[in-house]
């Protein structure tokens, strides 16, 4: 009896130590985000030290043409990269999961190259190729670069969610007279929606936050938001950038919560329908 309570006490003590440790780690992870938000209210032209509270940066943000321009540029690239990567990734995940063909192992291992190899290596390799074929750097080159690392993540994410042998439904659909394209659009694709959604979210966040690829492959004219921030680093980042990135993270979190809510709602409805 006494021994049991001793181990119980030990367990509880360990539990408290664990809680404290976890809170500490979370604090360290959230400090940079909190500081970023706080300094968006800093009443100073450059963020060097705290100088008083103001909300004017949220208004002045819209007057900063370079900043807004780079945000648009980033958004356009992220949306295009997401669409391209999700289309190629969805098809690729199906193809690599369901068919045997020569070179499949090779393509599978190539997919891991952009995921594992340091990004700078891939960026530089693409840069050399683009320069040699005389492609001018800009939106196109950045887009190719982003897709090159988004496609593998999309394939891996979607492939992981395709059920092992989902042929029965498709065969049933074809037996009932649907042709291959109808079957793909009405049976195969809908079953993959959760995987595709995750892949799209991942591609978008990877693209919009990318620095290395964009920095190496962007021409002299336009720069994405992260590249602009990197170039501001020497002079000091201005508080309007803090304001913009604060708005961005709030939008992303809100979108995430909304999609989780929708997913939960759908699941509940499905359950109710099953009953």
């Amino acid at each position, binding site marked *: 009896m006494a021994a049991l309570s001793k181990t119980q006490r030990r367990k509880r003590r360990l539990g408290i130590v*664990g809680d404290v*440790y*976890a809170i500490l*780690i979370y604090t*360290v*992870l*959230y*400090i*940079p*985000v909190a*500081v*970023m938000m706080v300094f968006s209210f800093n009443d100073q032209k450059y*963020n*060097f*030290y*705290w100088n008083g509270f103001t909300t004017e940066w949220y208004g002045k943000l819209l007057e900063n043409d370079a900043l807004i321009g780079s945000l648009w540029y980033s958004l356009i690239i992220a949306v295009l990269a997401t669409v391209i990567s999700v*289309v190629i*990734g969805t*098809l*690729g995940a199906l*193809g690599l999961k*369901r*068919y045997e063909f020569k070179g*499949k192992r090779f*393509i599978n291992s*190539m997919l*891991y*190259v*952009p995921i*594992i*190899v*340091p*990004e700078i*290596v891939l960026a*530089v*390799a*693409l*840069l*050399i190729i683009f320069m*040699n074929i005389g492609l001018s750097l800009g939106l196109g080159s950045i887009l190719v670069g982003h*897709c090159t690392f988004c*496609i*593998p*993540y999309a394939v*891996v*994410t979607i492939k992981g969610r395709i059920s092992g042998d989902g042929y029965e439904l498709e065969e049933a659909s074809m037996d009932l007279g649907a042709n291959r394209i109808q079957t793909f659009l009405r049976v195969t694709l809908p079953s993959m929606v959760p995987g595709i959604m995750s892949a799209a979210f*991942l591609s978008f966040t990877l693209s919009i*936050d990318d*620095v290395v690829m964009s*920095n*190496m492959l962007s021409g002299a004219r336009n720069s994405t*938001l992260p590249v602009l*921030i*990197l170039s501001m*680093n*020497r002079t000091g980042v201005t508080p309007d950038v*803090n304001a913009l*990135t604060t708005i961005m*993270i709030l939008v992303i*979190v809100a979108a995430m919560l909304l999609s989780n809510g929708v997913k939960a709602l759908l699941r509940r409805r499905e359950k109710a329908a099953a009953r």
Partner: protein
Amino acid sequence: MSRQRLKNGASELQAINRRRDIHRKTIPALAQAGPVSVWMVLFVTIPMLYIIYVSFMSRGVFGDVVYEFSLESYQTLLDSTYFKVIVKSLQVALFTTVACLLLGYPFAYYIARKPPEVASRLIMLIMIPFWTNSLMRLNSWLLLFQTSGPVNTFLQWAGITSEPITFIYTDPLVMLGLVTNMLPFAVLPLYSTIEKLQNSLLEASSDLGANPRQTFFRITLPLTFPGIFSAVILVFIPSLGIYTVSDMLGGGKVLYIGNIIKNQFGAIRNWPLGAALSVLLLVITGLLIFVYTRFAKLEDMEVV
């Protein structure tokens, strides 16, 4: 005779069926796996081979690439200036990896022992900060550790120092940035292997008289080794090549391999040297992956 004909007929039918089968499968296989295969070959295989090729070329007087075989770039890597950078980068990446493992393992363990629905919330809570612009998160460390920033103000107020300490543009601050940026890449693979660990094994171990420490070192640690090695790969390799952290927090004073590569393709213009450094990173990556595939499948690595 008729039996022979029947046989022939059967095999002919088989051949037709096989041909039809191949035909029926070739088009969808091509439509599905084709685009991804073409993309990977065009934008991964060819560039990778080409960068290896360029690394064996030499640099022209005007920073152009002279297409003649030479080992010049690799010899330059052994020059003390570059060699020091390589060694320092390896040290920093190693430090980051060890720190992420030591900090991340107990954290992942803590999360994995929670009920599944709590655990998935806790994992989500790790991800959220990482959707914030990574450079702005780094900039925050800069703001905190400025000469006139909150940390220095506090240290002086508390009487720990009388003069402000220079944190910014130093290696330790870059390492802090690296560890905080890389931590999730260690926690996620660790979490997924610890989570799969069966409770019954741990109970059996303690029933058989092992104390918690023995159970940890003899059961838990060996069984979660694949996760540990995934974490090593996902932290060590990116920290070896990253240049944004050292750019943001090092202010151009802290140089790692990534910065040197970037500079070869910018102002300095020595592509073969940059290519040779890239090949060095490729070789290190390849070695680690080779070791990894000795005891685990690449497909099982939790990369997302």
